[in-house]
């Protein structure tokens, strides 16, 4: 403990200032003021977004600090919801996210099962290989994958976005789920095997129900990641019929209207952010656990 040893030499006149201890209750107050200030900093883009979405075009482009609109313009939302482009983009997003969610969750849980509950020759080699792929950034495989999908004729479809997930995409997710499955006692599936269940039955009837919290965590990660995802969709979903919400929202900004219709952009943004926000608030416990477990950004 070299660090502690060096502290022994500290002179006595360098102790904590007494005034700080004397502050007592005020100290707590200062603490909360700081916390609230940081919270305000964290939240204000969101609040500003919501406020602007209810303003008129003129008010949204005015230079002022009013967060709350003079008169709430709910029309901004009704117009948007009636817009067929918006509907299509929203449904596309829901569709794509659902497909990825189902495909990835199922395949990831299969693979995690193989890595944790089954004993087989070569498991360690394959597992090490999988951990090795954690190091490979997306950028390396993205270019040839594009050529692959081009050759398959999939550039004008959802396939490049949804189908790779079915191949247990995401080594970090496999790892997370595997770590969770390792904590389940061995006796449980041994008993099932005794009763004549094959591994598929063990996986579906015994292990999967026990893994609900971990599966919830990876589903949330997948949901947020895919709902927000812009890079891959913008590469593959160039056609209007395939547009997802991130593309729709980001393109709203680029039309040449003047003044920029910020109130409409912000209304679309609010509707876009809402599912993620609700998911996050309802499940923030899973988030925190998942991140400290894998160190990934979700």
């Amino acid at each position, binding site marked *: 403990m070299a660090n*502690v040893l060096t502290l*022994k030499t500290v002179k006595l006149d360098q102790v904590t200032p007494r005034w700080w201890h004397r502050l007592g209750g005020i100290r707590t107050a200062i603490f909360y003021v700081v916390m609230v200030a940081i919270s305000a900093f*964290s939240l204000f883009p969101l609040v500003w977004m919501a406020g602007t979405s209810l303003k008129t075009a003129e008010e949204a482009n005015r230079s002022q600090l009013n967060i709350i609109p003079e008169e709430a313009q709910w029309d901004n939302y009704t117009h948007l919801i009636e817009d067929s482009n918006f509907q299509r983009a929203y449904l596309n997003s829901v569709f794509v996210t659902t497909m990825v969610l189902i495909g990835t969750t199922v395949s990831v849980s299969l*693979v995690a099962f193989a890595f944790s509950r089954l004993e087989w*020759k070569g498991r360690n080699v394959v597992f090490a290989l999988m951990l090795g792929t954690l190091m490979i950034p997306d950028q390396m495989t993205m270019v040839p994958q594009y050529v*692959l999908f081009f050759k398959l004729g999939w550039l004008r479809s959802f396939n490049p976005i949804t189908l790779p997930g*079915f191949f247990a995409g995401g080594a970090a997710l496999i790892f997370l789920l595997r770590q969770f499955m390792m904590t389940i006692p061995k006796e449980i599936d041994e008993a099932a095997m005794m009763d004549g269940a094959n591994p598929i039955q063990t996986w579906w009837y015994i292990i999967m129900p026990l893994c609900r919290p971990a599966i919830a965590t990876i589903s949330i990660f997948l949901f947020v990641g895919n709902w927000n995802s812009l890079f891959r969709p*913008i590469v593959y979903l160039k056609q209007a019929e395939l547009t997802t919400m991130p593309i729709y929202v980001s393109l709203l900004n680029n039309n040449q209207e003047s003044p920029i219709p910020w109130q409409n952009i912000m209304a679309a943004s609010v509707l876009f952010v809402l599912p993620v926000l609700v998911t996050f608030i309802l499940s923030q416990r899973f988030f925190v656990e998942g991140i400290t477990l894998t*160190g990934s950004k979700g």
Partner: protein
Amino acid sequence: MANQYRLENIFWALGTVAFIAITSYLIGLVAKFLVKLRGFSETEQRKAFWGALFAGPWISGFFIFVAGPTLVSLYYSFTDYKLGKPIEWIGLENYRVLLKGEGTYGGRFKGAMFNSFYYAAIGVPLQIVTSLGMAMLLNREVKGIRLFRTIFYLPVILAGGPAVLLAWRYMFATNGGFVNVSLQRFADSFFLFDYIYRSVVYVVESLNGFYIGMAVRDDPIGPLKYTFPALLGLFLIGPLAFGEWEESKRNRALRIIEILGAILVGVLFSKGLAANPINPVWTYAFGLMAVGIMILNARAEKWSAIRTTQIIALVFIAASLVMTLKAADFNPTKGDAPKYLIALIVAALPLMVPFFGTWTAFTTKLMLAAVGILGVIIFVLLIPGQLDGGRLELIFRYLTFQSAIEQPNNMDYLEEVFPFETISTMWFYGSIILVAAIAALLHERYPKQRKVFLYAAFIFFALIALNSFLDTRRYFQDFANIAEANGKPNYHFARFHEFADEYPENRRVPFWLTNDIWSKPSLVLITMWSSGAGMLIFLAALKGVPRSLYEAAEVDGASGVQKFFKITLPMISPALFYNIVIGVIASLQTFEMVFIIGTTETESSLMSAAFFLYQRTFQQLEIGQGSAASWILVVIIVGLTAMQFRFSKWVHYEA
């Protein structure tokens, strides 16, 4: 949901599931066969079958989406493949263009690397400070802490999507945007805040203008060239000037001479010492330097070092001789050749001396005489070329800021003071060497003079650094005149100028996102806002620091600051290092922010490696170059990750 594309996708998904099921079954069979080959029992074979079957989705995905593409992309990177066109092997051409920054796209890639360096140097530390600060605030058991943690983390989730980035873009409007209006209100509320606000704006503006000038060397941003060598001089001479003079300092001075000298010679050599019509004064200077190093080494009684210097210097001279002769078609009397040849021979002569016998006191005298002669030659050659036309006076004026004060919008004096277009900074590197050499020579007998001399040198470099830094600022303040005078359009400060007219310096506001100077700070602010992921990592690390350590420190009367630096920071250093590496990697991979926040004007200053990849591959379909760029990126990322693994071992505290 009835949409043709979605239905199609569902069919393909069903097909994929069937495909995965079949391949997994086949993989299972293969695994079973392999285990059988190695002579394991029936049970083991069955286990291998089931194991491989379950891992099948990942294994097949690995081959289709990772291993295969990796190999293919390595192949593409050596070709000029463009989607829909035939492939042609071009060897290392793509890598050469990207790494050397050739042409428009090579330049953009280089720009992306410079931008990442900016984030690594400025953005990531700020992000670390924010996230660590938030984590330390959260690391206590009080009411409502979970709610605060949720709120602090929220931006991370939102920042991943385009919606909130658009909101930021909206709030960043220079004229009447939320950020600027609230900052203005804050500044107006109390006169001291106003000063703070303006100083921050001034510093951010200057630093970024400075950085842009550093990153984009081709631009007519003259003054910056001198800042780097001046800072280097400060950095190298400072430790020599301050504190007690010790034996080790002389050795350090010798190292400075050797290393800088080698670099200088290398640079000059690469520019073609003989082939280019460079002033032969450099050859004499080179000889002088080599002789000087030999004398200093003799003083330090390092005999093998003398031999090394001698041989290296003679090899250089021999090579220059050959190059000179080759340039003159091996006719020593042709054109300028005699001038160079004489210089080379004169410089070589003293270098030959130590070949004869051992080094004696007489050798030293001989060498000192050579130094004197070479010095006189250089002086004679330099005076007419360099010091006429009041150049000394000009240098004096530059050092005393007179030129800047008298002619605020004219930087011609810079061209006059430091005349060589490409190698004028060599003067500074040369003077660092000179200072170190004189300091080492003044070693024993003249301690007082040495101190005065080193202080003077330090002040000289400090003045150059400060003055050229201020010049930079004046430069982008008035870029239009200067760019025009230089005959080069300067797009980097284009929009800046537009706003600068509207907001003169005494009521300057941040011009977020509108120009290259303010685009990067905007991005840094957004990453600071969304630094919650790092915060959670820090929080987990902080929770792992044993309370007993703090208690022991408190018993010993340690203050809060001491506890932080002596206990907290060492204990969480693995998390710290992890966050730094992740931050740098993330800056290379930034895409959404550039896509949403960048405009045509600021795209080049926000360009990240990932965005370059996107443009090159997916917009222009240049698969070959895109693959090469992705491989460079991968090498950097894997290198950083490997470094993280290595360092996380020894960064950890010694328990």
